[in-house]
């Protein structure tokens, strides 16, 4: 047993069960007497439901019950709630149309749930669902943003004029317009952030279970935040008091945000389990995932930067259309506002910023946070715009960045868009990345590639993001309908081993290892004597779950606070056992010592005394060694860094090959460097996916054309070059660990680096910008259209 504390790359405790097929995922769970649900979904994007005939389905073999929206409407069941309310620029609240559990009156996107068949097998339920007859009257549909805001566009929701969910602003338009009016130059860029489908390896699944003796409900679900689901579903949808509702999120195979939200299927299985008095299981087929998991991104923006003659940024002006899909998913309204526009300063000291965001309903799957959530959109916009400024002015793209960086001595730094950055050193991450990438010798590589007939390009992104969204009071004032603290319960057992009950949730991130290492560090308990428990509302205190790279910065900080309480109480017990004053007790390496002496008691001695309080200060101190702490952060954390990508393009085919990728990130204190490297690798792979491959494509009428892996291009292992991942860290100044978060940096920093490299590779064709994904077909057509002009020159 070597060093296992903070800074040790210990192997992941959870991997033994994951890699040997012994994980316990929702679909692995089977309850006695379990039935199966199959959900009949809309096969069209927008239609009025004239009639639903379930008679034949109800009589089909193995069928127990069939339910429709009318059955739900007849009960005391609410719509799927939205967890964040944005206000329009005139102060009025956003449009928040009803999101029924099963469609009532209309369907609004392909995949909208219309009816559910409960049967004794999945096959029987699916067979019967084919017998449900639905009379639809098709309505005109709208799928993309510009169509949805055009005059006369079909309305997704009656009474939501112009499909406008909200029209929100940040910054003072008059001030920014004034800066633009007198600026030396304005550089403008129109750009789209492509819509993505998360595609977690494990499809969503849910089991509802109703205990006929106690009247208790249990929901097993693929969730990143079981307490949030219990609150939303119990209080707003099914009206089940929290003491009668348990939500379990066991092993979860990837989420990337898509498993944060409360989905209709969770309410369906829980409610129907109560109706039929038997457990009901639903597991998504992959094609269902494509049309029912919340999608990500989907912005159309115009960005303008006012600059002086030296390229110093004077002001930034943005307008963005953000697709909400057909209904508001749990945190959707926050993504293009407080998780996007507040990031538009990036790493630069742009003094004034104005951003107007219009959120728009369309006949598509709801859109919500996806790995990075708003920050990738902001970063892509900003880092493409900076390269466009370099392109238009001829100023070197590195020099341009350096001269506009917030300097390392300017922290804490107040941006013009609400956030106050606590720490960072952008010159250092840039310098290390440039050196690692061999930036200065790139032109020789470009020339060498040219001799091989390839177009080589290099691209950079210097980015910043915000994690551990907080504090609760601040996010509440911005419209969050939840707190954003975290909780930890540290239970030292009588013999000195420890169980951690955390409100965060691990769905691939390795918390069972990283969080255990905090216990190794602070209490000196060996790693194999620490168990991390998460994902069960019956076991853990009310926690907020995992998203926004918050688990270590917020959840880990709660653990530190709880362990501080353990140590404080342990000192009192040790003082009693050692007949010393509590002020003289020191705790280090699992041992309480009377300062300056060799008299000591181990944590085990103390915990045993706490649970077997024979010789114990029982008058002053309760027995037991079990402490809980809630931690509400004082601020966001601000990871950042520099990503550099190198690509080679085959001009004959347009194929882009990633040949080199360097990430130098500042993630604050690193607990397990191996896990951080893995998180960054995974994020970068997703970022490369967005830049080069992935795109959710709807036809103009709302049919999803990229509805399977046959047409939706996921990045594969051989698309990803060897990744050079390093960290250059400054500490978060306001949490006890100094950690900032690493889960999303890869997906945030990498897309603009890749696209800047692609644009650079195409510079001889006069390319200033192209939209993601940079597919071979797209690049070929750009080369084709440029060729006659080049030939003419």
């Amino acid at each position, binding site marked *: 047993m070597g060093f296992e504390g903070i800074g040790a790359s210990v192997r992941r405790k959870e991997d033994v069960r994951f890699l040997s097929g012994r994980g316990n995922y929702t679909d692995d769970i089977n309850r006695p007497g379990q039935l199966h649900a199959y959900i009949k979904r809309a096969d069209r994007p927008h239609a009025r439901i004239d009639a639903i005939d379930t008679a034949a389905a109800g009589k089909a073999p193995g069928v127990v019950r069939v339910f429709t929206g009318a059955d739900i409407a007849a009960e005391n069941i609410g719509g799927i709630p939205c967890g964040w309310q944005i206000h329009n620029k005139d102060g009025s609240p956003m449009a928040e149309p009803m999101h029924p559990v099963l469609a009532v009156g209309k369907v609004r996107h392909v995949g909208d749930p219309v009816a559910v068949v409960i049967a004794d097998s999945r096959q029987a339920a699916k*067979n019967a669902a084919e017998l449900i007859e639905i009379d639809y009257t098709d309505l005109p549909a709208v799928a993309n943003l510009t169509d949805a805001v055009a005059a006369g566009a079909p309305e997704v929701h009656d009474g939501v004029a112009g499909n406008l969910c909200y029209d929100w602003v940040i910054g003072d338009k008059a001030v920014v317009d004034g800066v633009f009016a007198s600026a030396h130059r304005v550089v403008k860029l129109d750009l789209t952030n492509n819509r993505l489908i998360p595609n977690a390896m494990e499809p969503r699944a849910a089991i509802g279970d109703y205990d006929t003796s106690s009247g208790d409900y249990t929901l097993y679900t693929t969730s990143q935040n079981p307490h949030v689901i219990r609150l939303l579903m119990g209080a707003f949808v099914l009206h089940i008091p929290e003491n009668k509702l348990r939500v379990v999120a066991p092993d979860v195979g990837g989420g990337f945000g898509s498993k944060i939200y409360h989905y209709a299927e969770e309410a369906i299985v829980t409610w129907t389990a109560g109706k039929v008095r038997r457990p009901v299981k639903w597991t998504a087929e992959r094609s269902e995932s494509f049309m029912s998991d919340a999608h990500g991104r989907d912005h159309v923006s115009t960005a303008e930067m006012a600059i002086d003659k030296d390229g110093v940024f004077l002001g930034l002006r943005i307008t963005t259309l953000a697709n909400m899909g057909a209904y508001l998913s749990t945190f959707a309204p926050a993504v293009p506002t407080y998780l996007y526009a507040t990031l538009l300063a990036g790493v630069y000291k742009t003094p004034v910023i104005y951003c107007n965001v219009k959120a728009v309903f369309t006949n598509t799957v709801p859109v919500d946070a996806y790995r990075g959530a708003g920050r990738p959109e902001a970063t892509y916009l900003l880092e493409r715009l900076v390269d466009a400024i370099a392109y238009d002015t001829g100023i070197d793209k590195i020099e341009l960045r350096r001269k506009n960086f917030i300097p390392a001595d300017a922290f804490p730094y107040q941006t013009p868009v609400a956030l106050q950055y606590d720490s960072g050193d952008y010159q250092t991450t840039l310098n290390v990345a440039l050196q690692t990438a061999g930036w200065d010798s790139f032109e020789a590589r470009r020339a060498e590639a040219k001799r091989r007939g390839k177009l080589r390009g290099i691209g950079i992104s210097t980015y910043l993001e915000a994690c551990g969204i907080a504090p609760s009071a601040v996010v509440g004032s911005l419209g969050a309908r939840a707190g954003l603290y975290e909780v930890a319960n540290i239970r030292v057992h009588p013999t000195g081993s420890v169980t951690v009950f955390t409100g965060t949730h691990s769905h691939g991130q390795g918390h069972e290892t990283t969080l255990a290492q905090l216990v190794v560090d602070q209490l000196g308990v060996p790693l194999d004597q620490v168990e991390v428990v998460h994902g069960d509302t019956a076991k853990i205190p009310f926690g907020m779950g995992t998203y926004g790279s918050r688990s270590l910065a917020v959840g880990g900080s709660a653990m530190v606070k709880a362990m501080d309480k353990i140590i404080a109480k342990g000192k009192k017990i040790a003082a009693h056992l050692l007949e010393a004053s509590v002020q003289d007790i020191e705790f280090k390496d699992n041992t309480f010592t009377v300062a300056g002496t060799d008299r000591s008691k181990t944590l085990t001695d103390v915990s045993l005394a706490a649970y077997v309080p024979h010789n114990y200060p029982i008058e002053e101190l309760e027995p037991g060694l079990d402490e809980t702490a809630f931690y509400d952060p004082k601020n966001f954390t601000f990871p950042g860094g520099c990503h550099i990508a190198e690509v080679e393009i085959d001009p004959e*085919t347009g194929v882009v090959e990633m040949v080199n990728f360097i990430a130098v990130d500042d993630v604050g204190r690193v607990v397990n460097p191996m896990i951080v490297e893995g998180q960054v690798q995974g994020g970068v792979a997703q970022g490369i996916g967005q830049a080069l*491959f992935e795109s959710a*494509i709807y036809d103009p009428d709302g049919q999803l*054309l*990229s509805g399977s892996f*046959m047409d939706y291009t996921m990045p594969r292992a051989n698309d990803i070059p060897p990744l050079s991942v390093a960290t250059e860290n400054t500490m978060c100044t306001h949490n006890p660990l100094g950690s900032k978060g690493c889960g999303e940096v890869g997906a945030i920093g990498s897309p603009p680096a890749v696209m800047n490299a692609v644009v650079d590779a195409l510079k001889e064709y006069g390319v200033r910008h192209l939209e993601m994904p940079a597919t071979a*077909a797209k690049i*070929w*057509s750009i080369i084709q259209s440029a060729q006659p002009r080049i030939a003419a020159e």
Partner: protein
Amino acid sequence: MYDFAYEKPGSLADAVKLLSADPDAKALAGGQTFIPVLKQRLNRPSTVVDLAKLGLTGITVSGDKVTIAAMTTHATIAASPEIKAKIPGLQHQASLIGDEAVRHRGTIGGSLANNDPAACYPSAVLALNGTIKTDRRSIPADEFFQGMFTTALEPGEIITSVELPVPQKSAYEKFRNPASRYAIVGVFVAKFASGVRLAITGAGQGGVFRHAEFEKALSANFAPEAIAGIATPAEGLNGDIHASPEYRAHLIGVVSKRAVAKAA
């Protein structure tokens, strides 16, 4: 998938009888397309007749012919030293189909009978001027492939093997669909003493086809330059979210040149 009866006959005659007696019966020859189709409920056979027990596996080389039994898997073909020595283009082609799991289940006979317009093998069999042998006859490749998912096979007719003449040179080049990894354009070129045959898969609305102009030019001069100036019209080519007909037309030229360069 819908429920169906499953049969695994032990003789070719029994398999033919099962398939001929019931128009809704379907043959299973590896199932790497068929099973996903069943899972999507896009096909509803009464009976699935598994051809795995008919003894239709193996590769034999005799003189200037290679014969591959219909149920030979892609993995077997990709790993075959005989195929590599005699028809390197085919060995390479088999190694590019699907992934490891697909290659260990999918069979050449199954692929040919399905004639997916983006499948790889039809290009090899057509370029090599192969002969498809069935339970009742021999069909030349030029007559076998009759359009998208359409072949000369009669109801109940089972491919038993494919006989391929050994060319002087051969190569396959594949430009993959980035998502599915099927061919957007796949080109198989084969040089015989009698001339060059070049077949293209993935691009045509009617499935695999030969490129007469390329063949003529390459028969005169088997070098990439020979076809560099020949444009392929976009008419009749597929267009989808991944590649327009124009892009496919362009790729036909690029990929063909690369195939020739590899073979030459």
